[in-house]
């Protein structure tokens, strides 16, 4: 394997130093190092390879939107070295067979560590548990289970699932959305939805489920993870739960750190997402929550859709935004440049902590001699005008089209091999 020396990089915000990658690990950290290939990292921040706990790779079943390969490319371009692939594929990933298929496709692509997520219930129908143990014992080694896309709304099913996965240190990742309060909902319920005549998705539909589930998790002594938390009220409930010692973790998406429901006024379905974009007050609350650790991680909820599912009137459009390629830029803009968190905390929120929640031993390790060389180089001084047609993902439904975002990924190393160099896929 070729060795690479990254010159003058700032490791999670520290003083510039050289970093030598050889034989798949970090071989040396110091000054004036040499190696077979030189990567100029002047001005760049070196982060541990990013780990996404929430991605939709769409394969099997919706390959016109994304495949494991194209999704892996998008992930690498965004500085990720591991992604967790959600189970709402077709067929649903509710058996050892399907999760092993996804795991194998990930290995063949060889660009990021693809960790399949298993469904909580068969077919995502919410009525009977899927074969959680079989999926855990499979070659895919599933530890995260989620019906994401849908809520495990039946309290007895949720209780059983929380208890059952304790046996193999699994975690249930809940998509919090009370279905009866959100029947036909199109966007956040607020002043804007009332004016636009779009059916509202009230914050209480998310908060009520989270409140119920943290109490359930506490009662049965299980760990719980909350997907894409989006409201100020949800942040407060998690904060309360943690203060009580309840073993709950939570994630926020990059788009919920910056975009609001005002964008729906254009009726452009690129802004249609579940959970919906909320108000400015919610944006500020989730930023604070991410800063003080109430929200543990950033997870993209990368949701690619083919153009016919977004090039239409709002109510006919699919929910979801892509996000792998712009995640680090958005976190930089909303959290680092604003002084809310440091680069060291970015490393925690986007690499160490997600790997711990997902129980991925080989990822999310601090950059140190001997650690696997999963490293992301980010140039914070670049400015990139985001263009939908330039997406690496097979889909182009990015809400940031036309925005200029600060910073760009200049290199990504996966187990010592570069997947991105000079800002481009290798």
């Amino acid at each position, binding site marked *: 394997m070729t060795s690479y020396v990254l010159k003058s990089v700032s490791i999670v915000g520290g003083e510039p130093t050289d970093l030598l990658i050889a034989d798949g690990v970090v071989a040396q950290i110091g000054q004036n190092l040499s190696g077979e290939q030189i990567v100029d990292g002047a001005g760049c921040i070196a982060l541990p390879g990013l780990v996404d706990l929430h991605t939709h790779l769409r394969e099997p079943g919706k390959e016109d939107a994304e495949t494991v390969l194209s999704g892996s490319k998008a992930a690498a371009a965004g500085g990720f070295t591991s992604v967790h692939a959600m189970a709402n594929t077709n067929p649903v990933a509710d058996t050892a067979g399907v999760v092993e298929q996804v795991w194998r496709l990930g290995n063949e692509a060889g660009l990021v560590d693809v960790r399949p997520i298993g469904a909580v219930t068969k077919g995502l129908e919410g009525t009977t548990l899927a074969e959680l143990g079989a999926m855990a014992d499979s070659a895919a080694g599933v530890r995260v289970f989620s019906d994401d896309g849908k809520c495990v709304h039946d309290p007895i099913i949720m209780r059983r699932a929380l208890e059952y996965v304790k046996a193999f240190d699994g975690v249930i990742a809940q998509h919090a959305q009370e279905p009866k309060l959100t029947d036909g909902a*199109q966007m956040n*319920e*607020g*002043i*804007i*939805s*009332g*004016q*636009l*005549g*779009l059916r*509202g998705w009230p914050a209480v539909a998310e908060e009520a489920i989270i409140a119920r589930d943290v109490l359930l998790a506490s009662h049965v002594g299980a760990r719980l993870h909350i997907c894409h938390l989006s409201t100020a009220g949800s942040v407060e409930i998690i904060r309360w739960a943690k203060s009580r010692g309840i073993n709950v973790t939570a994630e926020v998406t990059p788009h919920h750190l910056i975009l609001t429901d005002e964008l729906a006024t*254009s*009726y452009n379905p690129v802004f249609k997402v579940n959970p919906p974009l909320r108000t400015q007050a919610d944006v500020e609350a989730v930023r604070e929550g991410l800063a003080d650790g109430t929200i543990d991680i950033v997870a993209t909820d990368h949701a690619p859709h083919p153009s*016919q599912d977004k*090039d*239409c*009137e*709002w*109510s*006919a459009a699919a929910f979801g935004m892509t996000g792998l390629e712009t995640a680090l830029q958005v976190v930089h803009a909303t959290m680092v440049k604003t002084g809310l968190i440091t680069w060291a905390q970015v490393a925690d929120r986007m690499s160490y902590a997600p790997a711990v929640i997902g129980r991925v031993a080989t990822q999310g390790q601090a950059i140190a001699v001997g650690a696997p060389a999963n490293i992301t180089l980010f140039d914070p001084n670049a400015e990139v005008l985001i263009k939908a047609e330039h997406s690496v993902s097979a889909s182009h439904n990015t809400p940031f089209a036309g925005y200029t975002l600060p910073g760009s990924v200049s290199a990504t190393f996966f187990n010592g091999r570069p997947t991105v160099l000079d800002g481009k896929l290798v």
Partner: protein
Amino acid sequence: MKHLLSTADLSREEAILILDTANQLAQATGQGVGKLPPLRGRTVVNLFYEDSTRTRISFEAAAKRLSADVINFAAKGSSVSKGESLKDTALTLEAMGADAIVLRHGSSGAANTLAHSGWISGSVVNAGDGTHEHPTQALLDAYTLRRHLRSGQGDLAGATVTIVGDILHSRVARSNVHLLQTLGANVRLVAPPTLLPFGVDTWGAQISYNLDEALVGSDAVMMLRIQQERMNAAYFPTIHEYSQRYGLNQTRVNLMNEGAIVMHPGPMNRGVEITSEVADGPQSVIVEQVTNGVSVRMAVLYLMLGGNEARND
């Protein structure tokens, strides 16, 4: 005016221009003149995804009286009902040379999507999109109000207009609230709490749950149709209770100011939101609203397509 998507886009001057133009056109047609020439050579397409014979015929009459060519594209029983997307239908109409598309669609924002998509180069008239807006209805309502309350001139400053019914799901209500306020009127909204949208208190209108109180001091009342489906979704317990609390009868009409008028966008549920006695009574202008609809739609089409602002100019 390239597109008419929402009354919120109209300034006071633009709204008055449309109403004044409707005056002139009403006079012209009233004088027994046949067709008027200004839209000769223009093609207007009625693209209706929802059944609405009355609105479609109104637009058709308006376009034809101005000598435009009219094409009716009823989405039912066409390629649309087989799942053709709005985009593909729009591209087809563009290829056929539509100068204006009058769109009625079940999705809020559909007219905005059509206008801003880049699929067509012509103009879009929103004839009702989901629960969002129905601007020509509000314009004909304002025209009717102006005729009766202000001798057909100027604006509606100082007039009090009360709108009653399912505000939450009403595109007519939304369009009227914007336009009436632009024209200086004082707007009151009356409904049970379940039928008022979140944030309605930011609309600038007076909100009331009590119809009798709201009618005192009103110069006009606009009754909205209540749909059976709303009862099944627990917005109110029974049609009977709704009618008792929010239905318009002669006793309630008598609470309004002298010379007040009764309006309804149609179609009416006689005996539910309005009694037959009131609907057919001397203060009702419900039938006149339909006539005014043609004049107002002629005015909109004339201002949109009668000059040099259409696709091929």
